[in-house]
């Protein structure tokens, strides 16, 4: 019996020592502990080219892993490594955090910690691209502007992100009126759009309180439904089994509660975010940039994309507007989104 066990141990040791890590198909998850927060990082995709795309999720209050759903993420994972990171106090992140300590600057440091761990784990020669969506655009911008962190990454891809929250609220009210009148003339959801236009005409953008800001964001998501009903927007692809598996791995209750404490229920961070503007610092960004926007994004209007495009201090920049998309072109026009991101990465990897 002892001989059999010895032989088995030797065989297992031999096989395990011969096993090579298959970087063409990475499926890894780990946590990064930084400043009292334990943040999950999920790493999936093809590592052959050593291209790692860190997806900086929106919200604040969303989850990184949730963005693994959809055709765009699945297709990008076939070519590159996608890194989905649950930010501090969001998704399945854990920790003991004083809500008043949560700041954009601290979260930029969290992102720096994630970048450091990725290099520690996969090698200093990995090529990191940042892709920030919505609030992730704010956080990504904060990271690039801090210290010399932009030198740690190859390029910046901003998708419907915000570098200037007060500008969002000023610009989106005009967009409600302009697009609303356009849709009324086309007889699309006429009554609903008339209500929206009528409401927008009475919003005082110079005196927006917390309730007004939340109401604008609510209506921004509401009108997306009208545009989908009238086929102005391209419908998202059907959910696949892979998407269901991603949904299964999340925890909606924890995510909702944690996200609330971090942002909506956290006055200091909420106020910091809604008053934040990086407009006059964007000239300090010198790395290649790609700005991707949905034409009908009422959450963060495309005017912010053009503004960021014009202000970053690099000639190596592109902007692309998806004409049948709203706040998430990776869901509305997944194929075009993948083509745009892939083309940019191939040019800069």
């Amino acid at each position, binding site marked *: 019996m002892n001989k059999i066990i010895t032989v088995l141990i030797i065989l297992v040791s031999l096989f395990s020592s011969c096993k090579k890590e298959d970087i063409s198909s990475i499926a890894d998850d780990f946590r990064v502990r930084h400043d009292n927060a334990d943040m999950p990082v999920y790493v999936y995709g093809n590592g052959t080219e050593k291209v790692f795309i860190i997806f900086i999720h929106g919200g604040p209050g969303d989850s990184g892993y949730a963005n693994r759903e959809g055709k765009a993420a699945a297709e990008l994972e076939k070519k590159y490594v996608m890194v989905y990171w649950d930010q501090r106090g969001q998704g399945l992140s*854990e920790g003991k955090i004083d*809500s008043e300590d949560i700041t954009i600057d601290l979260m930029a440091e969290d992102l720096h910690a994630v970048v450091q761990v990725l290099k520690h784990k996969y090698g200093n020669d990995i090529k990191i691209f940042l892709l920030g969506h919505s609030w992730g655009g704010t956080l990504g911008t904060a990271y690039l502007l801090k210290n010399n962190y932009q030198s740690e990454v190859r390029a910046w891809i901003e998708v419907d992100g915000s570098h200037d929250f007060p500008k969002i609220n000023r610009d989106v009210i005009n967009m409600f009126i302009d697009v609303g009148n356009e849709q009324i003339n086309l007889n699309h959801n006429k009554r609903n759009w008339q209500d929206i236009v009528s409401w927008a005409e009475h919003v005082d953008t110079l005196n927006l309180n917390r309730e007004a800001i939340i109401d604008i964001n609510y209506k921004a998501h509401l009108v997306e439904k009208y545009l989908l009903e009238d086929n102005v927007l391209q419908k998202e692809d059907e959910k696949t089994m892979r998407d269901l598996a991603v949904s299964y791995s999340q925890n909606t209750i924890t995510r909702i509660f944690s996200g609330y404490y971090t942002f909506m229920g956290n006055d200091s961070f909420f106020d910091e975010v809604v008053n934040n503007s990086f407009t006059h610092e964007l000239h300090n960004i010198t790395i290649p940039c790609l700005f991707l926007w949905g034409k009908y994004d009422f959450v963060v209007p495309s005017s912010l994309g053009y503004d960021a495009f014009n202000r970053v201090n690099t000639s190596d920049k592109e902007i692309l507007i998806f004409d049948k998309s709203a706040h998430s072109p990776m869901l509305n026009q997944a194929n075009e989104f993948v083509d745009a991101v892939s083309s940019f990465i191939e040019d800069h990897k």
Partner: protein
Amino acid sequence: MKKVIVISVLLLFFVLGYSQIHDSTSVFRTGSYTLSYVGNNLVKPGLKFGTNIILSEKTLVKTKKRKSSKTITNAFTRQLMLAGNIGFFWHPKSHIGAFNYYELTYRKINLKNGKYSKIGFGPGLYRSFYPETYQVDDNGDIAKIPFAGRIYLSPVLTFGSGKFVKDSFFKYRTFTTTLLFLFDYNSGVVPLLNFEIGLGFDFSKNKTK
């Protein structure tokens, strides 16, 4: 905190031991233990072991007369129990959650059909266990942390129902909804919802017939 965990688990063994020696004359008044499947948020799988002792018991018989001159008699047993529970669940791609909690439970049993309902509350502890974890300090130094995770105080609220079963290898079946409230989870209190389906077993020789 380690001392609290040790004391908490020892307390479970105390409840377990006491429930085995507890003497009783009632068919229901015996300590029991339960084995349950735990579904965190219904679908994240886990297991739970529980044990309970009956602290007090009262049987009530209610008689109602109907117009048809029929008399209906309902008999109920009301019990106050102390229960200790330990278990875990597995959250794929994220962590393993282990919990240990105690509850004071009120249970009402219909003696006619053996069906019961219960409600309980009490203190508890919850520990998450992460996969691979890297700590990054202020100097940018990176260190791998073994067995990383977080410990939370987790008072519990439970609602359940079940039925005592005759002539079976188990004493009763139980379905329980458990809400653990994790304190100081990030910046607040986060509920953890578990659904448990289990079987209760008898310690006593005086088994339900």
